């Protein structure tokens, strides 16, 4: 009886689904987090009677064949790159991206990672770094005698130094865009890595065509929609229960057969 194995694949798929949903709910307040979705596909089919096989030697064909599928598999878990809400923080080094693009960060290994999390601060040397202390690319140093920092929508960083009235440009925030955002690999700590699926990054100035703009004093919240996550969780739980009912039923059928003389 195939029903046992088929329902087993169904339960495994729903377990993956619940894991993805719980990760979304756990990250509902993580800055710059993009919600994920598990995608399922049906497994291969057994052709018990082939579609379109001849039913006589005069060329008549059966109108539909008999195919029994063998279950379900997880095809992908992909991130949904919908824009999150912008939340005001009034911190002059908090940047939110409105639209397409990622900030670039240099990892300790020397590789470049990409993030939408713009909660930046200053290192002891005055360099703009992420919450983990990784420098933002290109490196921008804020002088220690700066009174205020202004970052405009195109990413130009201006500071007003003590005793001066005219602001002074100290750097330019750059952003990267990818042909396929969903192909980026999650690294944890809100960082993403380039893969063969994502394609090579194209860097540019915020606000130019194809690039989002930056908002100073805001952070992008997670795009997890709690209502839809809870709805999905209920659906996943019911689907799990139904698959376990299939197993119980198939078991009962087999036990009926076993008890037959």
């Amino acid at each position: 009886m195939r029903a046992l194995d088929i329902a087993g694949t169904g339960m495994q798929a729903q377990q993956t689904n619940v894991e993805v949903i719980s990760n979304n709910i756990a990250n509902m307040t993580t800055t710059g987090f993009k919600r994920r979705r598990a995608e399922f596909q049906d497994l291969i089919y057994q052709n018990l009677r082939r579609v379109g096989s001849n039913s006589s030697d005069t060329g008549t064909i059966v109108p539909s064949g008999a195919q029994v599928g063998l279950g379900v598999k997880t095809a992908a878990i992909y991130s949904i790159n919908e824009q999150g809400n912008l939340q005001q923080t009034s911190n002059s080094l908090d940047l939110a991206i409105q639209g397409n693009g990622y900030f670039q960060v240099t990892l300790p290994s020397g590789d470049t990672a990409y993030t939408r999390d713009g909660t930046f601060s200053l290192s002891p040397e005055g360099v703009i770094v992420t919450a983990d202390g990784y420098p933002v690319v290109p490196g921008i140093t804020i002088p220690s005698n700066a009174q205020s920092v202004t970052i405009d929508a195109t990413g130009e960083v201006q500071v007003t130094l003590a005793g001066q009235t005219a602001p002074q440009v100290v750097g330019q925030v750059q952003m990267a865009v990818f042909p396929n955002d969903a192909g980026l690999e999650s690294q944890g700590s809100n960082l993403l890595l380039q893969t063969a699926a994502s394609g090579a990054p194209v860097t540019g100035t915020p606000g130019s065509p194809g690039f989002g703009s930056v908002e100073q004093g805001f952070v992008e919240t997670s795009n997890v929609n709690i209502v839809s996550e809870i709805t999905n969780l209920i659906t996943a739980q019911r689907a799990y229960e139904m698959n376990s009912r299939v197993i119980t039923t198939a078991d009962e059928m087999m036990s009926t057969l076993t008890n037959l003389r």
Partner: protein
Amino acid sequence: MPGRICPVGAAGPCRAAESPVAIAPPRWHASCGRRGSITGRTAPDMELATYIALSRLVAQGREMDVTAMNLANASTPGFKAERVLFSDWLDRQAGSKTPPGGRTLTFTQDRATYRDHEQGALQHTGNPFDLAIGGNGWFTVQTPRGPRLTRAGRFSPSADGTVRDLDGDALLDTNGQPIKLAPTDVGIHVAGDGTISSVNGQIAKIGIVAPNDPNRMTAEGGLLYRADVNTSPVAAPRITQGALEESNVEPILETTKMMNELRQFQFVTQFVQAESDRQQNAIDKITQQQS
């Protein structure tokens, strides 16, 4: 070549048509003439009742497998529920002439499975390349085995800008060509008729086709179907961007069916048990008479 089937496309050799999966009726009695015909009616075969019940049990097992498959895919986007079609297999027994209105023996045969092509619910995902088809029609994707049809509208642009599905198969436009986006194509909009446009203007139009006979499709897994007949473009496709078509499996219906299947299975099994007892009883009585 009559009586033989050749797979559509180049894959696989021709092979003899499959015989229907059914329990072969016990014909050997008929051929050796042991079955007598008294007053034009067929004398019942000893095991026949059990064999008929067995044909039902085998078919029931198949139906259970299909229900399990449907429930396992209750949350697979673009999945279409499968249904089982039973037919009766009439045993017109050789050597006996059943009078009109008389009884023939009827075996259950699970003749075919078919797809329920009812529209699934649309679920909002917010992904610009998640496309759902409303009403009739299928997306065409280019696989290494040739073009295949799918209702699972989960696409994304790959590293070179080609719009592909989860397995990396390219989505085809109305001319049967892959759809390629330039790096500057942002703000992707998919119109209801399948026209893809960006800030740079129109890019391509997604080809939505339908097979000329919806039953002549072979499911290959991975939500792909092979059309065994020609396909033609759908006149007025309706595409929704940012949504996926959910599986059209109705869990309540399937669960109810499953309970029904179990009870029928148990009922037929009880029948087999009772028949076995009856035969045992008959054998006991006959042997008692002889002794």
